[in-house]
C-alpha cells in the first residue's frame, strides 16, 4: 500500500480522514495510532512486532530515564541500553548483508513467510525513537507518559516510506494540542497532490527510463544515452524522495501537524555542501544534532577531524542502503565537502551563479552513478560511457523521445523559479493566484487520478527501502 496505490488513495486515506475527523478531539490520537498500525500490518505484516518492540523499548526507556534522573548511573545505563537496542535492531535488520550471521535461521529462505526483507521504515522509526530518547536524556524535552502519543509518533505512517525523519522536539506540542482548519486542510492537500504528481507523473517515468538504460551492457551505451540516463536518475530520485516527503507533509498538515520541509530545491545549490543543506534536510539535521555536534567539539587534530567527517558521511551513505556502493557514495561526498571546506568554496564563490549550480549538479549526478551501481567495475564502465563512448546511437533518440517532456517538467519543478513567481503573484494579484492555484491543483488531481486508476506500473517502488 504505497501512497500511489489505489488501496491507499481510495480506501485507506479517505477512511482514515473520515474516521479522524469524526472522532472527538480528545480521542483522535487513538484513531491515528490505529491507522498507523493497520497501515504497517498491511504493508509489512511480518515486522509489525518489531515496530511494536521498538515502541515498547522507547516508551519504557523514556519512563525509566525520567524516573532515574537523579540516579545518574542508572539513567546513563538506561540510555545506553535503549540506544544500543535501537541501533542493534537497525543494524540487524537493515544491514543484514553486512552481518549475515546475526540473522536467525528462521529468516532464511526455506520458510517463505519469513523470507528476509528489510523492514519498511526501519531507518526512520529507529532514528525517530533515538531522537526522543537522546533529547529526553539531555533534558531538552519532557517525558511522554502517554503511550498512545509516543506510539503514534514513532509509527506515524506518512513518513514511513521515504521520510522525513521528524525529531520529537519538532512535533511534541502537536501531539497533544493541534488545530485543524480549512487553511491547513487546503494547504495540506496542495502539498499532497503536488507530491503525488511528482511521484506518479514524473519520477516513475524517469526512473523506469533509467532502469531501461542500465539494463544494457554499459560498453554498448553511447555518451548521449549515458547522459540521458543520469539526467533521468538525478531528477527521478529527487522527485521520488521529495514527492513522498511532500505527500507526508501534506497528510500531516491535513491532520493538523506542522512538519518542516525536507527538500528545499537541492538542484539550485551552489556547492555540494549547500546541496546537503537542501537535500533530505531532516536526515542531515538528525546526524548534525545527534552525532556531528557531539563529536565535532572533541576534534583535536586535522586527521582525526577528517576521519570523523568521513565517518559521518559513511553513516549517511549507509542510511540509504547497506551495499558497498553506498559506503563509497558517502565517502565521495565526504571528500568533496572536505575539499570545498578547505579551499574550493572560496574559488567557487568567484564564479557566476549558473556555473556554481552546474558544478553542483554534475558533482551530484556523478555521485548518483556511484549510488546506483553495484560494483566498482560498473561504476567505471558507466563513467567510461559518460565521457569516452560513441557520441550518439539510435537508442539515445529512443530514450530521449520517451523522457524529454518529463525531463523538461522536472527541470522546472526542481527550480525555485515557479515558487518565486507564485510568491510574487500571491503578493500582487492574490485573486489570480488563488484561482490559478485552485485550477492547477484540480488539473493535477485529475491527471493523478487517471494515472493511478490506469494501473500503470510504478517503476520505482523497489528502488529504495528505508
Amino acid at each position, binding site marked *: 500500500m504505497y501512497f500511489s496505490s489505489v488501496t491507499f*488513495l481510495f480506501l485507506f486515506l479517505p477512511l482514515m480522514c473520515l474516521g479522524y475527523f469524526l472522532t472527538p478531539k480528545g480521542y483522535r490520537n487513538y484513531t491515528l495510532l490505529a491507522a498507523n498500525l493497520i497501515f504497517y500490518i498491511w504493508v509489512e505484516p511480518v515486522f509489525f512486532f518489531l515496530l511494536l518492540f521498538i515502541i515498547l523499548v522507547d516508551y519504557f526507556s523514556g519512563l525509566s530515564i525520567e524516573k532515574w534522573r537523579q540516579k545518574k548511573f542508572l539513567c546513563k545505563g538506561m540510555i545506553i541500553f535503549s540506544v544500543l537496542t535501537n541501533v542493534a535492531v537497525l543494524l540487524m535488520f537493515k544491514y543484514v548483508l553486512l552481518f549475515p550471521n546475526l540473522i536467525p535461521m528462521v529468516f532464511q529462505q526455506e520458510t517463505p513467510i519469513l523470507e528476509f526483507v528489510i523492514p519498511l521504515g526501519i531507518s526512520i522509526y529507529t532514528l525517530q525513537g533515538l531522537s526522543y530518547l537522546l533529547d529526553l536524556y539531555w533534558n531538552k524535552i519532557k517525558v511522554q507518559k502517554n503511550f498512545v502519543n509516543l506510539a503514534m509518533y514513532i509509527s506515524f505512517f506518512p513518513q514511513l516510506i521515504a521520510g522525513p525523519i521528524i525529531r520529537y522536539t519538532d512535533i511534541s506540542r502537536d501531539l497533544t494540542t493541534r488545530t485543524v482548519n480549512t487553511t491547513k486542510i*487546503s494547504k*495540506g492537500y496542495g502539498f499532497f497532490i503536488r507530491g503525488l504528481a511528482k511521484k506518479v507523473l514524473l519520477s516513475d517515468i524517469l526512473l523506469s527510463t533509467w532502469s531501461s538504460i542500465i539494463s544494457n551492457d554499459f560498453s554498448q551505451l553511447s555518451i548521449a544515452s549515458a547522459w540521458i540516463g543520469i539526467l533521468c536518475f538525478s531528477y527521478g530520485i529527487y522527485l521520488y524522495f521529495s514527492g513522498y516527503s511532500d505527500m507526508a507533509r501534506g497528510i500531516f498538515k491535513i491532520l493538523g501537524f506542522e512538519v518542516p520541509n525536507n527538500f528545499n530545491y537541492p538542484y539550485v545549490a551552489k556547492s555540494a555542501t549547500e546541496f546537503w543543506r537542501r537535500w533530505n534536510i531532516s536526515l542531515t539535521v538528525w546526524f548534525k544534532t545527534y552525532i556531528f555536534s557531539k563529536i565535532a567539539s572533541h576534534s583535536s587534530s586535522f586527521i582525526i577531524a577528517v576521519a570523523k567527517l568521513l565517518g559521518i558521511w559513511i553513516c549517511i551513505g549507509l542510511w540509504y542502503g547497506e551495499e558497498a556502493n553506498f559506503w563509497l557514495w558517502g565517502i565521495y561526498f565526504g571528500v568533496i565537502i572536505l575539499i570545498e571546506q578547505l579551499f574550493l568554496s572560496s574559488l567557487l564563490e568567484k564564479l557566476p551563479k549558473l556555473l556554481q549550480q552546474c558544478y553542483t549538479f554534475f558533482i551530484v549526478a556523478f555521485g548518483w552513478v556511484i549510488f546506483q551501481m553495484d560494483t566498482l567495475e560498473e561504476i567505471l564502465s558507466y563513467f567510461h560511457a559518460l565521457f569516452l563512448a560513441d557520441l550518439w546511437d539510435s537508442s539515445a533518440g529512443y530514450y530521449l523521445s520517451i523522457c524529454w517532456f518529463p525531463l523538461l517538467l522536472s527541470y522546472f519543478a526542481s527550480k525555485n523559479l515557479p515558487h518565486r513567481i507564485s510568491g510574487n503573484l500571491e503578493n500582487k494579484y492574490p485573486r489570480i493566484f488563488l484561482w490559478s492555484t485552485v485550477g492547477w491543483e484540480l488539473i493535477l488531481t485529475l491527471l493523478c487520478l487517471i494515472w493511478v486508476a490506469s494501473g500503470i506500473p510504478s517503476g520505482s517502488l523497489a528502488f529504495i527501502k528505508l
Partner: protein
Amino acid sequence: MMIGILPFLKRNFSVKMIPACTAALLSLIILILLLVSSLGYHENSAANVSMPVLTVEALANRSFSQKFENYLLQEFPGYSWSKKSANTLKRLIGEKEIDGIFPLKDKLIQNVSMANPVTGQKNLEAVLNYFSEERTLGANCFFGLIPTASEIYKEELPSAPDVLDQSQFIAQCYERFPSKTVIDISTGLMSRKADQIYYRTDSHWSSLGSYLGYQSVIKALGGTPYSEDMFNIEYASHSFYGSLTDKTFLDYMQPDTIELYHFVNGETITSINKIFGQSQTISSDFYDRNKNNSYAIFLGDECGITQLQTNIANGKKLLLFGDSYSYSMMQFLSLHYEEILLVNLKYLTREQSQLIDVNSYADQAILYSVDEFISDNNISTKLSYFEQ
C-alpha cells in the same frame, strides 16, 4: 450529522478548499462504487478477478495486499477510461512503447524482447533432444519459428534497444538442425508484408499471414500448397479489436477484419476432438461462431490436445506441436491430412501426453512463434514427457 456539517462548511468554506473538496467527493464516489462492485456490479467485465481471501499466511507473505490492490484496480470505476486516457496522453507526449507495445501510426505491435535468454536456449535444446529420440528417427520431423509483426515491420519500429532481432535468432536456432528439417516461414511473410498479414490490434497473424505460413510448412513437409484462388473468403467481422487493444485500450486505428478461408471444393474437416484437462468436446465446426469478434474464432479456446479428422482418405497423419499461431493454420493444413493432432504444450498435462502415440505419426512438426518460443517454459519441460 449531515445537517450539522452543512453550516460548518458554509462558515468555513473558501475557494482554496475546492481541490480538496473535489478530491474528497471523488474519493467518496469511488469508495461507494467500489463497495457496489464488490456486491456484484463489475466495471470491467472482461477482467477475471475475484476478491482475495484474507488468511494469516496471505497477509504475512503480502500476497493478499497485492491481490487486493489488483482486485481494486480491476473493479475501479472508470478503469478502462483511465487506462485509455493515460495511454493516449503517454502517446501524445511521445512515449514510444506502452505496456510493452509499440503504438504505431496505423497499428499496435507487441515488442518481442529476450527477457530471459535461458528459456529460449532450453526450449531449443528440448526440440533438438526430441528430434534425436529414437521414436522420432523414422518420422519426417520439422521445426519452424514464426517471426512476429515486430520482425516483419521492424523498420517501422522506434529504435528501442531491447527489440529482439528475430531473423538472427531464427538463423542461430536453425544452424543447429539439418537444413532439410527447418521451415523458412519468414521469406513468405516478408514477400507480402505490404498486405495485411498481421492484425493491427492483435498479436497474431491474420488469415492471410496464416495462409502464407501454411504454404511454407506444407512445402517443407513435401506437399503442394493450394493456391490462394482455391479459397473463398468470408468476412466474419469488420470490427475486431484484438489483444493489444485489450491490453492498452488504444483504439485509434481502424479495427481489423477477420477473414475465414473456405476451400472451394468444400470443407474437409469431419470432426474436432478437443481435450481440456479432464473433459473433452467433439464437434465438426472449425470456426467457433460464438467468438466472431475474437482470434478464438479459429478452433475456439486453446487446449492441450486438438484432434482433427478429415474426409481426405490418404492415410497421412500429422503431429503438430504449436501455439495459438497454429490454430488459424489448421484450416489449411487439414486439406492435406486424414488426421492432425495439434498439441499445445502450454495446456498439455502429463496425463494427456500419455494419450498420444508419437510413433503413429509419420509427419511431425514443432512450430512456434518466436515470442512464445523465447518465453514459454512449457516447451522444454513438457516435450520431455515424450522421452522414451
